[in-house]
């Protein structure tokens, strides 16, 4: 039990580093080896995560629609997603004859790369971060908007009217909602005074921002969740895919593993958005602390930081999934009305409120 409590990802990482440093004397070779190990670990973690999210989504959807969901393959249907992946692997990776073949095959790769890049500055546990870049928030919002290039590329190169319509809608949508996402991120940056995700987590030692920041931060949290749901093209903002109208939107022409890569990037994006929301608003790996209650804070510290991080992340993932299975899809005009007439003005006023709060020191 004490071994379990003392376990942490940072000690594991430093142990591996010491082990490798003893074996490899060349410092450049050591760096390359560690990078390769990190990359493979990250990719396998993301694939396993996507398996889990795919299973979770189906079960959550089923339970919300009073169904059972997948429950035949493996115990409680857990192997269903493995079976589906095997099916996609065995399918032919078809490239349509009249498509722009280079761009068509490049698009899914760009999607996956763009979403995997955004995972770099996320702190998974205490002192366990791939790269604590000092402009982490800016980096994430910049890299995650690269995904729209992949979508536009896929839609344009498919040479299909549905794909093109889906891609164009997605372009309008992501460019609009980027603003609200950015403004709600800025409200946290104003309060914490840093763009680094590590510093933002540390600034929440005496309470999470959503508690410390009163109503303006709650508003910006709600705006962030809504706008980022739109940014990752999930229902009710899934106009880019819109199965019923566009037969799948930008990925209509894709099959096999190329289609699976779009699915992979969708789930990675879902995870990243939730992780960013958890880090900025709910304190990341920081345990639940109440200023003044030392014994309570001490008990909370016993729960490992990685569990705190993943619990918060999956709470937000669950909320976004509940959006998907509750709300009907918006029309294009309603989508743009929501952003330009409601979310953007509200978040602009909200920024002023947060700034006043930060200057006057009204936050806790």
């Amino acid at each position, binding site marked *: 039990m004490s071994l379990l409590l003392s376990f942490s990802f940072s000690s594991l990482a430093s142990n591996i580093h010491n082990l490798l440093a003893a074996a490899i004397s060349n410092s450049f070779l050591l760096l390359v080896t560690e990078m390769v190990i990190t990359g493979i670990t990250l990719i396998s973690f993301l694939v396993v995560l996507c398996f889990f999210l795919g299973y979770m989504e189906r079960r959550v959807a089923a*339970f919300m629609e*009073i*169904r059972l969901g997948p429950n035949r393959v493996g115990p409680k249907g857990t192997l269903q997603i493995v079976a589906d992946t095997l099916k996609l692997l065995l399918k032919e990776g078809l490239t349509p004859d009249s498509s722009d073949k280079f761009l068509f095959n490049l698009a899914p790769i760009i999607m996956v790369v763009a979403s995997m890049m955004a995972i770099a500055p996320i702190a998974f546990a205490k002192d366990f971060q791939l790269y604590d870049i000092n402009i982490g928030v800016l980096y994430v919002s910049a890299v995650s908007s690269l995904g729209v290039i992949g979508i536009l590329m896929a839609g344009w190169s498919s040479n299909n009217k549905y794909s093109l319509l889906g891609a164009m809608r997605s372009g309008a949508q992501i460019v609009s909602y980027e603003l609200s996402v950015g403004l709600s991120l800025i409200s946290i940056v104003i309060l914490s005074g840093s763009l680094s995700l590590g510093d933002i987590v540390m600034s929440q030692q005496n309470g999470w921002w959503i508690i410390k920041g009163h109503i303006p931060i709650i508003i910006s949290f709600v705006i962030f969740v809504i706008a980022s749901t739109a940014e990752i093209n999930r229902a009710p903002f899934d106009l880019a895919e819109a199965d019923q109208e566009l037969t799948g939107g930008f990925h209509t022409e894709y099959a096999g593993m190329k289609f699976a890569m779009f699915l992979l990037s969708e789930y990675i994006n879902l995870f990243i958005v939730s992780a960013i929301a958890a880090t900025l608003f709910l304190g990341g790996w920081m345990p639940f602390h109440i200023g003044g209650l030392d014994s309570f804070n001490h008990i909370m510290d016993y729960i490992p930081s990685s569990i705190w991080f993943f619990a918060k992340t999956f709470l937000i993932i669950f909320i976004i999934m*509940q*959006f998907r*299975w*509750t*709300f009907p899809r918006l029309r294009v005009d309603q989508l743009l009305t929501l952003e330009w007439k409601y979310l953007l003005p509200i978040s602009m006023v909200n920024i002023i409120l947060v700034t006043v709060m930060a200057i006057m020191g009204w936050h806790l």
Partner: protein
Amino acid sequence: MFLKDYFSTIYRSIKSLLTGMKVTGYYFTHPKEIQTEEYPDNRPTLKMADRFRGEVVMPHNENNEHRCTGCQACEIACPNGTIKIVTKQEIMPDGKKKKRIDTFVYHLDLCTMCNLCIVACPSDAIVMSQNFEHSVYDKKQLKKILNKPDSKLMDGVE
């Protein structure tokens, strides 16, 4: 006035969205509400609805007697020609000749379960059963003879 509309729109939309999320959240936290019938597994306990129309059957009592007088009202009522009744003349013990059914042919493959034959039957000889597992490997097995061999008309039914 504009601002009032603006904020009341926000209030109403958030309220309605939360109402929707309350419904899905209720279903998520109450797995007892799940409606799924795990069909092949729950076969012993499967209960069909009372008015479910599976197929047309002719109930027989313990003396192998049915209520069909061979009036052919069902055959006339059927829009698809599903029912074909072959009648015969039977000599009663008192020497009178009476019309009785020989075979009641029912083509399940033509039947749309519209219930018109059951409505048309004046003597309630045929009913819809609850059985719905009709699949067979040979189409010929879908042609059914509903009256059992050597069955008789029930006494008192004319």
